[in-house]
């Protein structure tokens, strides 16, 4: 598979092996594609051992993703019990931790959380710093409605032991958002920003979380991060909308303050007004000639008139 191969080409060529490899290499989540091509691939006999096992693992996970538990089970089976035809030199036993991870995943997919939990517990006993097992334990709680507080506690515990796990911080941010804890979500996004300071999308989400949390100080922080987001990527349309929205949100917060306190924020007000004009012009420019132009112009005209 060379660098000039792209997924649609591989699919049309019915190159099942390379479709699966492509999905694996680019870490795409395409379970339907994997299952379709995987099933056809497994029928071919000319598959090497390593490729066979890697593909079986990938197909098993994809099958769990789309709920095809029969396929998942048969993949698990094929991993430990290779068919008699192939003289496999790679033998996988049921004690293998990689196999056990897959087994637990299938148990989770089947809703058998107790058994899945005990497999992860065993994995953690063997290796207490097994981050994957710890995360899956959180996922088991998160999958069950009504266990949100337990899930949050589990994730909190995980984060205190693995504070560098940015994916976990992202998950925590989403959990905070779902319970309307916007300050908490902002805290999590701050951790993400520490890890990825040049990611425009994280700055955007952080700004949005601060804006939703409310208050003058948060509004100022929101402004700062959305401004950073558009600077990092002038094509981030979401950030441009956000910039106008948070600048207006800031002005709204100022309106709520008493007259004396407002004087302190005079410069901030000037900045916010400039941002609204700047963002507005950019948005009008982006939509010029498109179907939505009239609607966008109307909204932004309203913004600038109220300044």
């Amino acid at each position, binding site marked *: 598979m060379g660098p000039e191969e792209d997924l649609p080409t591989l699919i049309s060529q019915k190159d099942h092996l390379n479709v699966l490899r492509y999905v694996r290499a680019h870490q795409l989540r395409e379970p339907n594609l994997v299952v379709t091509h995987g099933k056809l691939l497994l029928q071919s006999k000319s598959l090497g051992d390593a490729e066979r096992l890697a593909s079986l693992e990938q197909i098993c996970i994809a099958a769990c993703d789309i709920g095809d538990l029969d396929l998942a089970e048969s993949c698990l089976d094929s991993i430990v019990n290779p068919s008699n035809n192939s003289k496999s030199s790679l033998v996988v036993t049921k004690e293998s931790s990689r196999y056990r991870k897959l087994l637990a995943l299938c148990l989770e997919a089947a809703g058998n959380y107790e058994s899945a939990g005990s497999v992860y517990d065993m994995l953690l006993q063997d290796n207490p710093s097994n981050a994957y097992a710890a995360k899956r334990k959180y996922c088991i709680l998160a999958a069950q409605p009504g266990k949100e507080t337990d899930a949050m506690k589990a994730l909190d515990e995980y984060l205190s032991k693995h504070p560098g796990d940015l994916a976990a911080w992202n998950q925590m941010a989403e959990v905070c*958002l779902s319970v309307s804890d916007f300050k908490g979500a902002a805290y999590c996004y701050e951790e993400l920003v520490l890890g990825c300071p040049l990611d425009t999308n994280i700055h955007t989400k952080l700004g949005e979380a601060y804006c939703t949390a409310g208050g003058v100080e948060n509004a100022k922080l929101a402004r700062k991060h959305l401004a950073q987001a558009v600077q990092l990527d002038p094509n981030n349309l979401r950030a441009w909308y956000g910039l106008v929205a948070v600048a207006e949100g800031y002005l709204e917060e100022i309106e709520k303050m008493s007259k004396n306190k407002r004087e302190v924020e005079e410069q901030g007000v000037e900045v916010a007004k400039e941002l609204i004009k700047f963002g507005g012009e950019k948005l009008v420019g982006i939509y010029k000639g498109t179907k939505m132009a009239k609607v966008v112009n109307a909204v932004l005209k309203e913004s600038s008139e109220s300044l």
Partner: protein
Amino acid sequence: MSTTQISLSSLAETKMALHSAKHGFSSPIHGIVIGKKSGGSDVLEIVDTIPVCHEVPTKPIVDMALRLVDAHLQQQGGDDLTIIGWYTSNASTLDDEAPNPSACRIASSMSENCQEGGDNFILVMITTSGLLAAVSKDSDSSLSPLCRVFQRHANTKTFSHEVHSSRITQENDTAYIISKALSKEMPICDFVDHISHYGSEDWNKMDWIKNGAIQL
């Protein structure tokens, strides 16, 4: 608490079903409900819906979407359509109990800014059981309705008062129309899709306001 009848158009239900089916496996969905109060008769007509996002909505997203839709409705003129509600579906497919708190919060603040006092403002929730019933064509759709409608409780002002199914009417053949749309996998695009894909070739076609690709 109002005692109006609520009528759901197939178009509105189909769009909500498509939006939910596209994202419902692990994300909440949110959108705007458009309709009108039929002049003489005491009927609240849900005519159309506009999908907004498939994540927990933040203030900038909600504010911008509402303002853009408002401007669109004003420019369209004619039918007297206004924003009459908000729709949502919960993140977890197992949770059909009550609308998620962010949706309730949004509905509350929108109803307060409503012109006629917000008693008629509705919060529609798409249920997973309803979606499943719509997909499996043989079941009786009245057992698992696709949409549950909530209005503002007179005392607590929260959106916990469920409108009884006897007050809700659907168009004929809605179940058939929805299952056909779902099986055809008609494309639907929400506000967040639109703003996230700026720069891609299809951006101009992402018409989240009208979603013209959805033909019944």
